[in-house]
């Protein structure tokens, strides 16, 4: 089952083409890495897929809904987390989860059991009544992920989710991502850590608004005769003609 379908998606601002005719598909339960240099068009593409910005041309379907004509249904069926965690610092841990559950229309009687299950999975049951501002960064990050998937969306968009956390926490976070993917949640993730690109089932690399490479890390390494994703990224991103302006 396809959770994302993008067909010739294009976004122009005036005479600047931020996203230039991109097409790809993402399958259910897949971990899909969306890479590119600053200014390559990742954020604009992601905003279209999340129903926050309408394509100038082309067509896209996310979680079964048309991103242009059914953008509200798209928003209700996806999760989103960015590096600036959308957590309420002055609310307790459980209150943050309760709030997101309410916003996304999780049935009332399901909210409490889901809060307990989420805290158990994170191993922070004892912190249920702690104010979010008192949590260490690594825990906030995991909690932000839990709120993003609290309504069991078909797909979750993660925009540089691991920036700034320590090496161990960064890896524990990826294990949460694996678990969510095993439960059938599709993961769409951007990152500037090239080792994390290796954890994805497939990776796309954007250059100047276009997708210049898309395959599994293993096949990309073979095709580009490279030892790792870092070398591939440098080969492609160096070709960029437009500056980030």
């Amino acid at each position, binding site marked *: 089952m396809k959770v994302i379908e993008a067909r010739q998606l294009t976004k122009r601002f005036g005479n600047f083409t931020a996203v230039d005719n991109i097409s790809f598909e993402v399958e259910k339960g897949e971990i899909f890495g969306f890479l590119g240099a600053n200014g390559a068009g990742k954020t604009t593409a992601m905003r279209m897929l999340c129903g926050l910005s309408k394509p100038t041309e082309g067509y896209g379907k996310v979680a079964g809904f048309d991103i242009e004509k059914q953008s509200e249904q798209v928003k209700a069926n996806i999760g989103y987390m960015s590096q600036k965690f959308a957590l309420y610092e002055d609310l307790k841990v459980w209150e943050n989860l309760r709030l997101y559950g309410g916003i996304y229309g999780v049935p009332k009687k399901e909210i409490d059991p889901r809060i307990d299950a989420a805290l158990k999975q994170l191993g922070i049951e004892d912190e249920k009544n702690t104010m979010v501002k008192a949590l260490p960064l690594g825990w906030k990050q995991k909690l932000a992920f839990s709120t993003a998937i609290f309504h069991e969306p078909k797909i979750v968009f993660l925009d540089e989710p691991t*920036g700034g956390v*320590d090496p161990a926490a960064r890896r524990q976070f990826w294990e949460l991502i694996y678990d969510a993917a095993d439960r059938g949640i599709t993961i769409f993730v951007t990152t500037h850590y090239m080792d994390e690109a290796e954890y994805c089932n497939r990776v796309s690399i954007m250059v100047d608004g276009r997708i210049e490479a898309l395959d599994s890390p293993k096949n990309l390494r073979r095709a580009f005769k490279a030892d790792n994703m870092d070398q591939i990224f*440098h080969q492609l991103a160096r070709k960029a003609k437009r*500056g980030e*302006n």
Partner: protein
Amino acid sequence: MMNAVVVRDLKRSYNKVEALKGISFDVAPGEIFGIIGPDGAGKTTLFRILTTLLLADSGTATVDGDDVVKGFRSIRKKVGYMPGRFSLYQDLSVEENLTIFASIFKTTIQENYHLIKDIYQQIEPFKTRRAGALSGGMKQKLALSCALIHKPVVLFLDEPTTGVDPVSRKEFWEMLAKLKQQGITILVSTPYMDEASLCDRIALIQDGAFLKIDTPQHIIEQYENTLWSVHSNEMSRLLKDLRSNDNISTCFAFGDTHHITIKPERSAENGGDFTHKKLEHFLKEKNHVEIEIKSITASIEDCFMELAG
């Protein structure tokens, strides 16, 4: 020769949170010194104390021979500071921002143009654009130009590459290498461990304390554990299977392999009997194929994880 930065037992708390728990280090003139660690480790607090923007609770620090408390006026004239958050005037143009910084320090853009030329030339085509309308990478270049325009003796860069893609990060470090050639001492903080090798010396910081200060090479040489990389056809399951093995102390994903450390008493180096062959046998019994096991040299990230425990 006098050290560019001298820090002794520096402490600073915010209410009950100890942001700096008594750190000491020296930076030699002309050195690139990296402070490497995650968000919340105390990097920004340290930079704010050294740039005289924040007072320590106790301990001492000097920059280019001046005490950060008694000599703050003198220090402010001769250091450059690029904070982690973009702090230029958003409503002024690129050129106006640079002019302001030059005139505050009683110099002109022309006088020190040679210092910023390589960096500023890249944004000069947009010199009439408002700073607030620049992209992330261009803001970074403008901020660095402004921090350099008075030819500082010591340059403080607080997480200049956070959120920046790998190619732009590499270019930024190439710029720092050129500034070093001009004799400027550079203190730079970063959460990216792969940038450690670009520094002359580094301090690994966590929870307000330094885990280690040395050259990147020495830190790697002092890594104590037995470290192997392991690969198989099923990486997600491999992680769990490796963790279930009693001989293995830690196991983390590292790109296309997992890194494992062997319990000291079980490693062959210490007379134990756990070998590549034994691990391969263990994994074959769990139906892994395409198994590859190698003894490897630690990266700075491995070292950080060992030291942070």
